């Protein structure tokens, strides 16, 4: 119950942060990615603000084995840079640049009742399903 509530609260705060920062607006995100046009550096400030807070939180988290609520810390263990990481991220960036949506803002815009955001989220879930199918095929091979 605590775990579920903390998850809900974290998601809610995340969404509010996206709305405050302006990043729930794809046109603003594209303004950042359009470095050859009129460039809007705002997204860099969003990441900067998030990372300043995150640096402290993760430095603190790294020294703990249990969270404040008593759950195991699930910090990613691997640090291997491989082909999957790079190719996947390159594909993600291309999709991001096409519409100005990454997963978080897509969900916030869906919550705001934007029909096109619903299409984006459904397509994104379909893309994730394609990944799972490819992984299953790979496991069988």
């Amino acid at each position, binding site marked *: 119950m605590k775990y*579920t*509530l903390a*998850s*809900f*609260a974290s*998601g*809610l*705060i*995340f969404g*509010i*942060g*996206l*709305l405050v*920062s302006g990043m*729930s*607006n794809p046109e603003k995100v594209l*303004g950042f*990615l359009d470095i*050859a*046009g*009129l460039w809007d550096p*705002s997204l860099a400030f*969003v*990441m*900067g*603000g998030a*990372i300043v807070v*995150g*640096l402290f*939180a993760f430095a*603190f*988290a790294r020294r703990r084995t*249990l969270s404040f609520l008593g*759950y195991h810390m699930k910090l*990613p263990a691997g*640090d291997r840079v491989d082909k999957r*990481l790079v190719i*996947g*991220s*390159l594909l*993600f960036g*291309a*999709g*991001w*640049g096409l*519409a*100005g949506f990454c*997963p*978080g803002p897509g*969900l*916030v*815009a869906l919550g705001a009742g934007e029909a*096109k955001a619903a299409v984006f*989220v*459904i*397509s*994104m879930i379909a*893309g*994730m399903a394609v990944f*799972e199918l490819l992984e299953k095929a790979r496991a069988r091979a």
Partner: protein
Amino acid sequence: MIDIAWDNFTPWSALFGGMIIGISAAAFILLNGRIAGISGILGGLLTPRKTDILWRVAFLAGIIGAPAIWLLAADLPAIEINASLPMIILAGLLVGVGTRYGSGCTSGHGVCGLSRLSPRSLVATLAFMATGFITVYLIRHVAGV
């Protein structure tokens, strides 16, 4: 030379909103011991394990519900989606496949990973930023859409 869009540039709300996002990531790691990576939280629902469903749905309900909570206090900020429907569908498919292969998106790699000083996340962030810049360049300045 880079021309800054001074009329659209919102450094303070960007910084402040970013800090709120950082607080969310901090709360999630410090309370639940987990990385606030949206693509991973959503993608994990496609191969669900029993103990794993509720917290994922709760997190996603929070983020999707944020505009409704916001509306209790103020009007929603503008959301301008100018891409055509076929572009949106292609974008969604690429974001879905790409974030799962790359094990993360702007939140998991860009915010949490860089905060952890993870070399893996730095590579991922540089990679998706690079194709993001290139794609927008091609669309706006080569194809001229």
